[in-house]
């Protein structure tokens, strides 16, 4: 393992991942504070605990690849390089947000970075990703589409129909899509065994002729190794592939949930022993790549980024009232006369 890692992921890269993971964690923590202060409304779903999954997969993506996910979406955007200020401004509902404040936390979308969002209906984005993958293939290029989904989403019909289409189209090399099941053990308050007749979620993809495997979703390196291999395979073949990343959500399902009767404090504490950021930090310290000074430096840098994002969001203007009626239909097609 040590060898492979060293051979494939340099210490610099690891340190860079650590930096990103610390940053996105701080971003989420700040978002929660802003939510408590009433600066952010609606629903707010935090990614804390699952960082290794998106970090490993996004690191294995090519610049021109694309991705879709659900409503737990801030971090996917940040890791793809979307300006943290534009993401925070979106959560604040400001005109400077990535979606002009019209989407909010559940609909962070940044097409310029291949991030197609950001959807609030569980499993509703999965068919979109399969169709997007088909479209990518018809370009004649070898771009790949990543589709992140939750363990709970797999019990929805949209998942089934989309997975079957991916399997079918994959037989013709027309479905370059990677399904990444972020199995954080719960769908809101319902644990996997209480929602899914079969608890080995990766194995369910066999019903669609989609090759699949599991991985440790708390270790970005483990995730990356699988991600790179799988993505390149999908890129080459145009066939779908599925990865179940075992991970855990430290925060409540949504920031509005004050108590969590479905799991014990003890369980959460135990899981925090494998906090992906903690594990990576221990490894980096062991390898002498990270010391207290470097750690404080990174921590301070992350906080600065987040503060700037908040300051920017706070001071940004609300969308002007005209925005209420824009972006419903294509501006080029006047509503009265219809699309041209």
């Amino acid at each position, binding site marked *: 393992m040590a060898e492979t890692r060293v051979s494939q992921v340099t210490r610099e890269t690891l340190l860079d991942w650590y930096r990103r993971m610390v940053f996105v964690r701080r971003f989420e923590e700040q978002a929660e504070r802003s939510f408590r202060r009433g600066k952010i*409304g*609606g*629903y707010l779903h935090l990614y804390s605990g699952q960082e290794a999954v998106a970090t490993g997969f996004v690191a294995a993506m090519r610049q021109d690849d694309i991705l879709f996910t659900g409503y737990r979406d801030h971090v996917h955007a940040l890791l793809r390089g979307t300006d943290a200020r534009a993401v925070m401004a979106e959560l604040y*509902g*400001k005109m400077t947000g990535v*979606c002009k*404040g*019209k*989407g*909010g936390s*559940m*609909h962070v979308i940044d097409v310029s970075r291949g991030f197609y969002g950001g*959807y*609030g*209906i*569980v*499993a509703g984005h999965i068919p979109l990703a399969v169709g997007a993958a088909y479209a990518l293939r018809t370009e004649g290029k070898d771009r790949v589409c990543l589709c992140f989904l939750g363990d*709970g*989403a797999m*019990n*929805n*019909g*949209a998942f089934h129909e989309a997975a079957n289409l991916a399997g079918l189209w994959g037989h013709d090399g027309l479905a370059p899509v990677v399904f990444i099941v972020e199995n954080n053990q719960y*769908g*809101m*308050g*319902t644990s996997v065994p*209480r*929602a*899914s007749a079969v608890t080995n979620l990766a194995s369910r993809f066999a019903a669609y002729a989609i090759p699949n495997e599991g991985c440790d979703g708390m270790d970005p390196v483990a995730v990356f190794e699988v991600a790179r291999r799988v993505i390149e395979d999908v890129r080459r073949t145009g066939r779908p592939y599925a990865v179940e990343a075992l991970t855990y959500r430290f925060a409540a399902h949504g920031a509005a949930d004050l108590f969590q*009767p*479905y799991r014990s404090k003890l369980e959460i504490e135990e899981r925090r022993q494998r906090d992906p950021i903690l594990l990576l930090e221990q490894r980096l310290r062991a390898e002498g790549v990270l010391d207290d000074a470097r750690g404080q430096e990174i921590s301070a840098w992350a906080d600065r980024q987040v503060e700037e994002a908040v300051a920017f969001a706070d001071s940004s203007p*609300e*969308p002007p*009232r005209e*925005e*209420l*009626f824009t972006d*419903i239909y294509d501006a080029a097609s006047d509503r009265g006369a219809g699309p041209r």
Partner: protein
Amino acid sequence: MAEMTYREAIKATLIEEMDRNPAVVLLGEDIGVYQGTFRVTEGLLEKYGPRRVIDTPISELGFIGAAIGMAMLGLRPVVEVMTWNFSLGAADQILQNAAKVRYFSGGQVSVPLVIRGPNGGGVQLSAQHSQSLESFYGHFPGLWVVAPATPADARGLLSTSLRGRDPTIFLEHAALYGIKGDVQDGESSVPLGQAEIVRPGRNVTIVAYSRMLRPALSAAQRVAGEGIDCEVIDLRTLRPLDIETVAASVRHTHRAVIVQEGWPLFSVASEIAAGISQRCFEYLDAPVERVTGADVPMPYARSLEALAQPDEAKITDAVRRVVA
């Protein structure tokens, strides 16, 4: 008489029915272990056990379809949709099976099913989570569509629905769960299909329902100071629609304003305006005014969301327009 919240009124009714009728079972996402997203079913799993309080996967199409099958075989399922927005995934089961099987079976099968949960917006949930679906469901024969505005009606209409033998779309509202009101003790049932005059008046009839009743009442309060005496009607049920109570009112006020949170086209407001114009043709002194949600997907930004929804000020302006 006891004062309770809208949430408590619904919960009390569920408990009452579950106690008197063992055929009543509850299904929904996170209604048990999680205690209910809006805490309506809090404690019921502990009280009635997992066979009667069934936590489901995120499979609206599946569990609503299953609830229909349960109802066909004699159970009386009550489905909680976490919000009505998620019911769109089950539209086929609700509209093609629940609403029609009694008819195409020639009356052999009943579907005593209540589907309940919060409808509408107003808390910055943006486009996918803020829809008002009453006009959509109300379009389909075979369904009852109910939308209580007060704790007393929530209780009375739910108990009537739970004793009926037809599928009922029971539309609650997230913004109402916490409101308080007097609810009579013991069993109470409000007939479906009967609107209520909640404020008698002489000059203008304001028609509203669900969350819009309160701004309608405060607007009536407001213009009363200007000498405009409004009669306010709470529809309470949308299918069947009690257009007669509305028409009777307009025949003496000669003016009407209709308020609804949802989109304007092909909606409840369209039907009421058309019904009034038809039934009160000789009586109307001014065109019927409609105050509806803006014809846009709901934006997230607080300021835009406010612009997109009816409120006291917009209703007040409409009232002034009809009397002008």
